């Protein structure tokens, strides 16, 4: 099986090739990479509007930026601009592949904000502004998002270096023959990984806060009967309802929310900056720590992107193993999130304890093959790191055929007709499907609004096209449906698991010929012509691959310049982008509902902040 199952970008349109009709198009990148259209920066809105209205690309999946300073590959011949703002669009109606737009802009320039066409660009443009310093004109709220106001510089720029290393790539032992690398951090008087610009005076320094995010909310919702005063209530970053270190600023009148603003970055771990310094293989364990409930799906997304970039083939047994792992993960995630939605509703702990009971059994299986319960680091480019252990399949079959369906029945029996869940869930947090799509929301959230969009069907990867399963949808787009859709999806996962565990090629045989990672068993060297062993050097180009993670569309965007570490490594995080909908969904409901609305989006802060 090949990773290139991923459909190619549709080139042909109703009116000819896209390159001919797209407004402002300057050219395309070469064919041996993910094809991208170069679009003049001042025409970007026209191009996006054309794609949305004429070609049906209604889902702006990812907005990001690449800094090409110091890049010397063939791809950038003849382009002098330093930055490219990169857009990936999909169609939720037609399914299939993406259209990629690159808008080159010089340093310190501005580009029009896409928020007028796709409100879902909101958070992503703020992130680009924060990390690259690119200004989006017309953006409603262009502030820093992951870092704090007043932070010095824009850290993802290529010329911004951390105080810790102060080097371009990781200082390997071999580059320091004496074997004693002195960290830059240790040479600084304050002994911390911190940078202060010259002339900066900590005594007189004032944070440049000019804007209180929820201050512009209307004073009342609708007609005011009483002359009440609205107040700002802060939840987080340390708050039991926020599922980690997340902060919500709400303006409320009585208990009704007038405006809600998410604040994040409290777990911003610089995943992308570190990823650019790492080699390709070194990034694999870091992806575990994105959405730390679902390390296997994260691994898969990343492996898929690198496989797409390099054209590595995956053996069939490994494809099945991946499916099995991903579906177990989905089960774990969905039962976990069901338990914690109930937790947020006030049913403290009991449903959660029931819901995560089976999780321990599944984690035992993970531990058996990978050595770790949580951070499995099990997938590799071209397969998985090692074969299943003896007897693993028997245990897995027992779970999939016996225990997991029973556990779901139990949850169903306990919760689905539960009066509190009905009363608190029905009709709360409503947002229509069109709004959700324009806000770039993906995953169970849109399926609970009646949109049958699942990447496993819309653009099948791996061997998902071989299994018989359905995409459940529910019509109401409220908390209750978001709870119930997870239960239904977990049932479908069990269904896929049963099939995959039954048909896995090689069956119980351990050490089956074609099992493990093609790259590891043959050595990267033989495939990529690099320095043997583990030093993968993909050809110059870029790739975007996505998987249906339990949270939504998890995408990895990788740009390579042919060196052992990625030039650009970006994670399109479903949790982060789904938070676009938090504000619009909460307005008009009670403060206590906002807690559940957040819980039903199902975020994991490791992935939100990266």
């Amino acid at each position: 099986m090949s990773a290139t199952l991923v459909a190619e970008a549709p080139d042909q349109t109703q009116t000819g090739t896209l390159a001919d009709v797209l407004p402002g198009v300057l050219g395309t990148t070469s064919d041996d990479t993910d094809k991208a259209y170069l679009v003049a920066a001042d025409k970007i809105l026209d191009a996006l509007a054309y794609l949305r209205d004429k070609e049906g690309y209604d889902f702006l999946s990812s907005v990001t930026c690449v800094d090409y300073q110091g890049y010397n590959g063939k791809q950038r011949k003849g382009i002098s601009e330093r930055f490219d703002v990169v857009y990936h669009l999909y169609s939720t109606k037609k399914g299939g592949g993406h259209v990629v737009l690159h808008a080159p802009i010089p340093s310190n320039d501005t580009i029009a904000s896409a928020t007028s066409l796709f409100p879902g660009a909101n958070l992503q443009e703020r992130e680009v502004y924060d990390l690259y310093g690119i200004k989006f004109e017309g953006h409603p709220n262009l502030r820093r998002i992951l870092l704090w106001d007043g932070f010095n510089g824009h850290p993802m720029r290529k010329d911004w270096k951390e105080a810790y290393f102060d080097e371009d790539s990781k200082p390997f032992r071999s580059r320091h023959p004496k074997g004693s690398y002195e960290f830059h951090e240790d040479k600084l008087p304050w002994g911390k990984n911190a940078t202060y610009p010259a002339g900066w005076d900590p005594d007189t320094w004032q944070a440049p806060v000019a804007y209180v995010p929820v201050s512009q909310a209307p004073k009342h919702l609708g007609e005011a009967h009483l002359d009440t005063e609205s107040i700002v209530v802060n939840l987080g970053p340390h708050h039991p309802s926020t599922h980690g270190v997340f902060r919500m600023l709400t303006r409320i009148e009585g208990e009704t929310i007038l405006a809600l603003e998410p604040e994040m970055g409290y777990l911003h771990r610089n995943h992308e900056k570190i990823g650019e310094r790492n080699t390709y293989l070194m990034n694999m364990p870091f992806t575990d720590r994105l959405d730390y409930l679902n390390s296997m799906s994260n691994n898969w997304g990343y492996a898929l992107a690198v496989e797409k970039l390099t054209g590595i083939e995956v053996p069939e047994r490994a494809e099945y193993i991946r499916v099995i792992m991903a579906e177990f993960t989905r089960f774990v995630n969905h039962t976990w999130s069901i338990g914690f939605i109930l937790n947020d509703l006030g049913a403290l702990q009991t449903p959660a304890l029931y819901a995560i009971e089976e999780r321990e059994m599944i984690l035992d299986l993970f531990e058996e093959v990978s050595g770790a319960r949580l951070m499995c680091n099990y997938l590799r480019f071209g397969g998985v790191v090692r074969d299943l252990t003896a007897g693993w399949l028997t245990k897995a079959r027992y779970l999939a055929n016996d225990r997991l369906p029973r556990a779901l029945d139990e949850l169903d029996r306990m919760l689905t007709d539960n009066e509190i869940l009905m009363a608190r869930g029905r009709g709360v947090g409503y947002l229509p499907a069109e709004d959700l799509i324009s806000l770039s929301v993906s995953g169970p959230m849109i399926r609970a609004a009646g949109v049958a969009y699942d990447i496993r069907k819309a653009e099948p990867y791996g061997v998902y096209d071989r299994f018989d399963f359905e995409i459940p949808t529910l019509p109401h787009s409220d908390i209750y449906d978001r709870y119930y859709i997870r239960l239904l999806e977990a049932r479908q996962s069990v269904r896929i698991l049963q099939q995959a565990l039954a048909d896995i090629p090689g069956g119980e045989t351990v050490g089956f010929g074609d099992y493990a990672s093609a790259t590891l068993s043959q050595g990267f060297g033989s495939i990529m012509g690099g320095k043997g062993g583990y030093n993968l050097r993909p050809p110059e180009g870029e790739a975007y691959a996505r998987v249906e993670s339990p949270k939504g569309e998890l995408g990895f965007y990788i740009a390579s310049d042919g060196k052992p570490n990625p030039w650009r490594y970006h994670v399109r995080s479903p949790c982060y982008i789904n938070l676009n909908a938090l504000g619009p969904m909460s307005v008009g409901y009670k403060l206590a509902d906002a807690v559940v609305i957040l819980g039903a989006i199902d975020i994991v802060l490791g992935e939100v902040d990266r």
Partner: protein
Amino acid sequence: MATVPPNFPEIKQEQLKPYLHDSIVVPDELQGNVLITTLDKVYNWSRKSSMWPLLFGLACCAIEMIATAASRYDLARFGMEVMRPSPRQSDLMIVSGTVTKKMVPAIVRIYNQMAEPRYVLAMGACATGGGPFKEGYNVVSGIDKYIPVDVYVPGCPPTPEALIYGLLKVHEKVERQSILTVPWYRKDQSEFVPVPRLGADIFDPRQVELIKETTMKKPVEASAATTGGGDAAAHAAGPKAVSGKAKSRMEEAKRRAAAKRAG
């Protein structure tokens, strides 16, 4: 040959003597019912048997912390199942995850709000020393750069078993403490930790002078001693002009590295 049977009440009396201060005599008829021990022991036993952790998760390690509290590993066995979201009601802070610069002021503030006696357990590689993300520009290399830590649990993430082992170590530490010497009953001893602030980068109020020494130097030297920043010019050179304190730090670091190699 008749051996004299040991007189257990007498032996016990003998053993207890040091604790009795010559004043407490347990009447014979109560010997079987009354237990005499030290105040320290009772005090510490009750503290360690109802040590409430702060409900406080930072990152991936928090998931393992929840798993530890769930039914399989069952933290309730140690009297620790009551996780309190309020720092006022909790005794133990489990720093479970990556400490970021943006978060650390909040953590220090929470720590200051906890009533003494309070304990801190650094769970996982991140809280201990920065972990896999140590090099990150927004990551703090371990919570002990700011607040005192009692027990470190290594791992990424530590398994629930490891966490339980660490918690038992906290209990042991509690058991070894004595009312006479614990800091929180002394006069004028408040362990208030100054809250770090977010400026151009994070800074500890205790280090303001140190930072100013470098940043407020004459422009030419200053730009050589700082790095980062938005402009390439701002960090053109490595740290050439180093202050005396920096030199001593460097030597310290070299010594440490040499000792590590030797040992």
